[in-house]
């Protein structure tokens, strides 16, 4: 299904089978562009992992296991047809639209309150916001089947209902994408909304042997591709294209200013240079020297030492965002950061020091109630205990989803797909390459954060992941005091140190 949505400027191919259903594994969108600018070659969900824990009748834990559940009819889902979403036009207020050319705009605005009504712009009950594609997966007995296949006793939940909503918004600055409010972009939200359901007359007995869901993990593969661009003074030709080192893409990882303690930054082997980027970031790898796996959140926090039970990544510091862009301009120059006016931006958290001033005079905003929830994750609050992991890898033919089943594109321990593969050393990608973003978010059933409460916070049975989405800016580069440099940036570890270490996993701190 080819979608060319003139209203939002997005176009993409949505892959369906002949009956109009999504392929096994979930929605697949390809050749995604906005206003004629490439955004991605292929975006899809790989599948869902459940971590199950088995208990005896005394409540003692006996074992844990992980089981993979791709979104497909084979896993007991009743799969809907793909639904196309089309936004309604946003129109002018009734009173003002009747005046050709709005010759009395200011007078009418002053005299009438028509402009204040929402119903003139956004019709009630109509989607005015996004185009996109959606599909539902109704798995009334999916959990029962998964648990039974693992040889585990019944679980509190029987069913798992999923809706994929891949949404694309218009190009605008409202709502703001970044705290400065000075970056125009179109948004992409590859949402998965899920609900765990219970069955009446279930064999589940909490006093007997039973199973609990300890976490649900959603794995995505985003083969982003943004256009490269070169400033030539002459005619570009085939030999020139061959001479370029690469026409591929580059990516960078960034941690905002507060994400790592000042002490750690000041004692780091590489100190940040002077400039706006030093003000903004406590850790940067721009562009990524080599393929990488990285932690973005650990059960809802960005510092592993905050958790009562250390995560498997250790007490590491997390990154806050990943940026993606086409190779460009003169050699060894990159997007500006902060800035990135032609780039894909993926932020799941902003540093605690942004928006230091609240809107109200004299109010103490230490709770972090300010715009962009500084220092806190931008995730569904009902399931905030998420562990976000990202990887950037070369587009390896062995992991081509067109030729490889979803279960071969993931691993029970997410990072094993990358680190324990038969090419364990990350390959260099700093000069640009055909690279893929792997995004995973794992919702834990509960988390204890001693600095907040000694009692665990528990996840609700329903939620939505990837709420923060990505935003795609494709403007000309800009300059100014609040725009970072276009050069490479590495701290607290230098590029050569990263190369020498040769590790996939790279924490921010």
């Amino acid at each position, binding site marked *: 299904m080819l979608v060319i949505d003139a209203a939002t400027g997005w176009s993409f191919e949505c892959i369906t089978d002949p009956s109009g259903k999504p392929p096994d594994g979930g929605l697949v969108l390809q050749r995604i562009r906005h206003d004629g600018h490439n955004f991605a070659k292929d975006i899809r969900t790989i599948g869902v992992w459940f971590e199950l824990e088995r208990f005896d009748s005394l409540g003692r834990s006996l074992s844990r296991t992980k089981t993979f559940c791709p979104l497909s009819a084979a896993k007991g889902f009743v799969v809907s047809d793909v639904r196309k979403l089309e936004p309604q036009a946003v129109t002018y207020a009734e009173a003002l639209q009747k005046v050709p050319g*709005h010759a009395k705009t200011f007078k009418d605005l002053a005299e009438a309150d028509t402009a*204040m009504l929402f119903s003139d712009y956004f019709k009630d009950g109509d989607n005015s916001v996004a185009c996109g594609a959606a599909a539902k997966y109704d798995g009334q007995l999916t959990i029962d089947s998964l648990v039974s296949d693992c040889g585990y006793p019944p679980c509190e939940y029987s069913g798992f209902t999923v809706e994929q909503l891949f949404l694309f918004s218009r190009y605008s600055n409202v709502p*703001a994408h970044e705290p*400065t409010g000075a970056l125009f972009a179109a948004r992409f939200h590859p949402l998965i909304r899920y609900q765990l359901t219970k069955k009446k007359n279930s064999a589940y007995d909490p006093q007997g042997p039973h199973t609990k869901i300890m976490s649900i993990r959603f794995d995505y593969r985003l083969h982003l591709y943004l256009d490269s661009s070169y400033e*030539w003074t002459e005619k570009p030709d085939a030999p020139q294209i061959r001479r370029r080192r690469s026409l591929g893409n580059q990516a960078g990882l960034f941690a905002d200013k507060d994400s790592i303690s000042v002490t750690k930054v000041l004692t780091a082997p590489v100190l940040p240079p002077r400039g706006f980027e030093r003000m903004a970031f406590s850790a940067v790898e721009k562009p990524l020297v080599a393929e990488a796996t990285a932690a973005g959140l650990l059960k809802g926090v960005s510092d592993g030492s905050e958790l009562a039970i250390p995560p498997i990544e250790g007490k590491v510091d997390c990154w806050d965002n990943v940026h993606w862009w086409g190779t460009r301009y003169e050699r060894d120059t990159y997007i500006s950061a902060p800035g990135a006016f032609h780039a894909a931006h993926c932020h799941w958290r902003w540093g605690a020091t942004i928006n230091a*001033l609240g809107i*109200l005079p004299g109010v103490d905003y230490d709770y972090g*109630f300010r715009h962009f929830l500084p220092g*806190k994750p931008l995730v569904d609050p*009902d399931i905030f205990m998420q562990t976000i992991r990202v990887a950037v890898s070369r587009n390896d033919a062995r992991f081509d989803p067109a030729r490889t089943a979803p279960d071969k594109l993931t691993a029970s321990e997410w990072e094993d797909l990358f680190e324990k593969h038969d090419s364990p050393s990350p390959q260099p990608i700093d000069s640009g390459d055909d690279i893929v973003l792997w995004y995973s978010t794992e919702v834990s059933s509960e988390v204890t954060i001693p600095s907040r409460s000694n009692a665990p916070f528990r996840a609700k049975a329903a939620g939505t992941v990837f709420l923060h989405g990505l935003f795609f800016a494709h403007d000309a580069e800009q300059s100014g005091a609040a725009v970072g440099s276009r050069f490479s940036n590495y701290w607290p570890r230098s590029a050569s140190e990263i190369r020498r270490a040769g590790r996939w996993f790279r924490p921010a701190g």
Partner: protein
Amino acid sequence: MTDFDTKVRLYALADPRLFDAHAATISRLVLQTLKVQPSPQRRVYVSPTSGWFDYTAFDELWERQAPPALPRAPDAMKAAEEALTNLEKACSGANTAWPPSLRGLALLPPVRLLRRMGLHAVPRPDGSAWDHWTYRAQPRLELDGGSKTRADVFGTQVEVHIGHMGQVIGVRARWSPLSGEQRFTDLSPLRALSGTGGPDAGSGDAAASAPEIRYCLDGDGIPQYYLAPYYFVSNDDDLDVVSASSYSLTVGVDLTRQDRSGMTLTALARGGSGNYAYNWGIYMMADVEQGIRTIGPGSTLIIKNADARATASAIKVPHGAYVVLLNVKDRVTGAFKHHQQQVYPWPFTDDDVEHAAPEVA
């Protein structure tokens, strides 16, 4: 210099649907100007939402079978700028074929005021060939009554894609046409940002270096009736967009209280008289198909800034991650601003704890 020279201009925007009503005529004029035959592969589109203009040759931009022979850079630049000049003429009152009901309105920004932003060769994703040139330009408008100063219109851009043999294979104008109506008003002094209420509360100090003034177009699908000037103020690690006239409103929303029963959101407009009317709406991204729910004006709060009293508004909503919408009007001047903002609740809330900003608890 007269008083008039020191005033700044406000530009009213045209209703985009006036252009939409003449879509067929505009399409014909554009294709004639670009010297291409009508075809399903040639799309001319003027957004009924924003008036933004788009022309795309679908079989050329990215999709041309044989690798294109691109012109030299200076020739591509010339082709792009000539196309814009010709399109401006064709789609304005300078053309006798322009619909009478659109007289006085022009589809594109004033081409003579455009600022070049660059020309780039763009390769195909598979690296097999260069696909096209992309030319970019920044629209500007005259800022002062005496037309001595020009200001960028933030949020706007014009792009032209030049393909095989110098053909124009794409034009995108992120530009909402002007209605022709202008109003002249005083440039507000730049107020220092502070923790005591922001620009409204300022000391009157100007920034150390003169900040840039730009008009702001908020984007596609965002209700807006006129262009007004704003200061773009750089601080150490931040950029603030601050009102530069009494018609240049800004709006902020904070989560000011959270307890078991929900969240209190408080909005405060700045830049105008202080006497503001609000109307709230809300939607959830995951429920986007359900549409926007109007909430209403909310509860009125009077906020005392350092130099004035301002009307704020508060609403209470259930816990959740939302996009809130606000229509704000200055009751004294009629200045209008539509605002949207993502709101996330404080995540670490257990049922027995209340969090509140103390001054409004």
